[in-house]
């Protein structure tokens, strides 16, 4: 009995442990059961597709640790992609279009932050409102139609989401490794370091853990929250632009429902809904796990409708085990 309790105590210190173990188990399962799972194309598919969403999952994770939600990430992503696409279409230089789109994302993130810290509306409701409102902006500027880029791909696109041909050509069918993986890795590592080793990181944990205590200790919790919203907005916008650089068309529905995928990834990764607990690495692995399940089930020939159910099941199981471990 004692050993079990001791193991539990030790495990409880590493919030991402459950997701890491599940990741390995699921990986093992598909490696044995699903034909072609260990192929280059399947593995790079998982990495690349997960990375696009992974980029903003990093932001959502920081927000959730500070005790707040952002349901509007999918809509910000759509607005930013439309701004990027439409300015390119209007002849703006690619770099200027990128800066403009990122600026817009930051402003939209900032609006979220302002509403939450100024009015005291719960962030779930506030960003439910902005999710719908920002989607309206995306529809309005895009004329409820696609925006497409049909010209010669600018060099910037290669930097944003170019293919790693030297890796992809290693096998047939060719892999699909793209720059998105690097961006995801970069942001995840950067955020992980900030959260672990900087003062700002400990402020974020304090803000989410016990806000009153944090304020008493002199943490400017409102600033922390505002910064997190802006970062999340920026990352959501960037994710959309990265995706546009490989598939240069964007439709008005882009990103709908991704906010819930992001929350699911974070929660599977061990972040508490109430804030104050969890890590960026956990959330990142959570996102990879979700994408791996999808690819694996396709290879097993399972009907698509049941993927969503499987992901729902994983979500609940992961949270139960996370809670069990941390409730020492």
């Amino acid at each position: 009995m004692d050993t079990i309790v001791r193991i539990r105590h030790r495990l409880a210190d590493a919030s991402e442990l459950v997701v890491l173990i599940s990741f390995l188990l699921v990986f093992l399962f598909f490696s044995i059961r699903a034909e072609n799972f260990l192929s280059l194309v399947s593995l790079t598919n998982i990495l690349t597709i997960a990375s696009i969403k992974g980029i903003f999952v990093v932001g959502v994770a920081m927000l959730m640790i500070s005790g707040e939600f952002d349901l509007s990430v999918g809509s910000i992503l759509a607005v930013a992609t439309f701004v990027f696409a439409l300015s390119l279409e209007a002849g703006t230089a690619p770099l200027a279009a990128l800066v403009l789109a990122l600026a817009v994302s930051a402003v939209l993130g900032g609006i979220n932050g302002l509403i939450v810290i100024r009015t005291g509306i719960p962030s779930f409701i506030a960003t439910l409102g902005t999710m719908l409102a920002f989607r309206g902006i995306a529809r309005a500027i895009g004329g409820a139609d696609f925006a497409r880029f049909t010209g010669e791909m600018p060099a910037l696109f290669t930097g944003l989401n170019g293919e790693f041909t030297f890796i992809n050509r290693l096998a047939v069918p060719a892999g699909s490794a793209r720059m998105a993986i690097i961006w995801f890795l970069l942001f995840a590592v950067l955020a992980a370091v900030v959260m672990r080793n900087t003062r700002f990181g400990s402020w974020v944990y304090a803000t989410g853990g016990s806000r009153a205590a944090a304020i008493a200790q002199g943490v400017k919790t409102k600033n922390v929250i505002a910064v997190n919203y802006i970062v999340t907005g920026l990352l959501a916008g960037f994710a959309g632009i990265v995706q546009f650089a490989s598939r240069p068309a964007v439709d008005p529905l882009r990103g709908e429902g991704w906010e819930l995928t992001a929350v699911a990834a974070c929660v599977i990764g061990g972040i508490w809904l109430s804030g104050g607990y969890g890590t960026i690495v956990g959330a990142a692995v959570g996102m990879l796990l979700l994408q791996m399940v999808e690819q694996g089930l396709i290879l097993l020939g399972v009907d698509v409708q049941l993927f969503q159910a499987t992901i729902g099941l994983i979500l609940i199981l992961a949270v139960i085990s996370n809670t069990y471990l941390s409730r020492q």
Partner: protein
Amino acid sequence: MHWAKNLVDSLSHRFGRSPVAGPLATFVVVLLLCLLFVPNFGSWRTISGIVTAVSISGFVTIGITFLMVAGEFDLSIGAMIAMSGYLFGAVAVGADSQITRGLGAAGLPVAEGSGNLALALILALTVPALMGLVNGLILVWTRIPSFIVTLGTRQIYRGLVWLTSGGVLLQTLGKPPIFNVFNGRFELLNNLPLFEGANFRTATVWLLAAAFLGQYLLVHTRIGNHVFAVGGNVGAATAQGIRTSRTKVLCFVFSGLMAGAAGVISFSQFRSVRVAEQAGVELTAIAASVVGGALLNGGYGSVWGALVGILMISLLRSAVILLDIPFIPADNFPAVIGATIIASVILNNYLRSRASG
């Protein structure tokens, strides 16, 4: 300006105790503005259209209000409506469907071509209620926040609907007269000279009945008091001897029941149901409850307020279409809902603070 401040003060003091007062006042103001300034708005056609459009989401909103007062919510409601629609539709008319065949094979009195209305209603109401029960049980057993539990079951239940339906949408041509009772044209009312051009439907009467029942349970019974207590402060409620877990589970069951009713009402009119039926309705219902004055953290809210909220959304939709604003076509209406949510929360908070202060 001084008189205006006084007026707000006296109004908010008089009605402020009731959660429905603020939203209702706002609704009346917006309604008057629309009547004055929106072309074609002031006709029974439009008014009845606004009322009819909430006949399905209204039920969901009543259920969600219970949950929000208890400090919880349920994201899996859309799937419950789909489940109810399939069960009701297939069994009521004995449609050519996997459901009919399966139930028939299991020895239940239904077969292709010979429907069973009583069985259809029982299944359509109890199965969603059971789905709500499962949500509630997971919640109280694991103590995971309802957002996460129902985010998970939202996906799982859609999978269940998919399996139950065989992945095929259901459309029936037969229309038993009972469909008109649940959701047919309300000719008794429409034919009155007073309601020239109106298109009221019987669904509205059922919705009102459900609202009366809901409000009665919430305000005038002990269970209702418990719901408020649990949502307000779980610790205090437990200290008072309230069985908080049981209360919360009951709220989930009630909300499932309302989703079941919504499925029956919907199928009775459209005679078709899809696996993805009513995806996203839960967010509209939460929005309506919030517009209608409920607090996300619980302990506050009312059924009437929530209905006012969902009517407000419907009213704005019609107004926007009638105004024909170029950058807000019908498919961009959700943006208006978004702005409304934020504006009304700010307004409701203000009115509430004036009332208590």
